[in-house]
């Protein structure tokens, strides 16, 4: 499994219309379903997981949500990234009574945690860089968002090899 097996141009959504986080999550989950990455059960599972364990991360500057759920609902690992037409309210992972305004969502469909730990870490590192999130928010279109994401991940991956498989 390589980063390019999970992070793909056709898995970038721009201008996704949603009035609530539930609408955004359901639309995204259904796209993964239509492309065969996940099972039908992924859709309710991702909504249920968000209720129990909110997924928005208050980074230093912009916020990002990283919804995901159990591997049993997934056929093939993928990362579906969305820039919403307008921000919607998410609850913070660390403080569920805190509301965060989120326009960027990185949905993980994870089939097998071995071998992808390093890629997840690299992605999270990229999201921790406020300049990267700022550039993604200001990008012209989905192609540019993909190029920014792939570039940020690629920059992180140079030199350092994964030492563990979790």
């Amino acid at each position, binding site marked *: 499994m390589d980063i390019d097996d999970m992070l793909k141009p056709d898995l970038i959504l721009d201008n996704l219309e949603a009035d609530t986080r539930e609408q955004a999550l359901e639309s995204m989950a259904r796209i993964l379903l239509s492309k065969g990455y996940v099972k039908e059960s992924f859709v309710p599972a991702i909504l249920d997981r968000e209720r129990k364990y909110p997924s928005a991360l*208050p980074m230093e500057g912009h916020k990002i949500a990283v919804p995901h759920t159990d591997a049993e609902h997934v056929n093939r690992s993928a990362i579906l990234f969305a820039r919403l037409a307008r921000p919607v309210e998410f609850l*913070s*992972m660390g403080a569920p009574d805190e509301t965060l305004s989120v326009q960027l969502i990185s949905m993980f469909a994870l089939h097998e*945690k071995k071998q*992808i*730990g390093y890629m997840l870490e690299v992605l*999270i590192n990229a999201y921790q860089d406020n300049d990267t999130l700022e550039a993604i928010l200001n990008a012209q279109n989905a192609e540019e968002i993909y190029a920014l994401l792939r570039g940020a991940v690629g920059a992180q991956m140079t030199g350092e090899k994964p030492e563990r498989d979790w």
Partner: protein
Amino acid sequence: MRKKKILVACGTAIATSTVVARKISELLAAKGYSVNIDQCRSAEVPGKLHGVDLIVTTTQAPLNGTGAIPVIQTISFLTGVGMEADIEKIISFIKE
């Protein structure tokens, strides 16, 4: 000296705790500490406590049966905000 064991807990034990476990391991290694790290779902914590010296959890869900084992609740290893302070806190619990 016995290696200290850290249990990292999150909602699904597939994404969040994987990243947190890797980060903690790397940051501790950079400071000369080698630890054993295990990861699990929040709900599995009571059955995973054998030999555990410290629990790091990313969720606010209350953990049951942790007894005297210290618990650090933080998302700093995901957001990057406050990460250094949390590593120092972890070191204070694991050093002899």
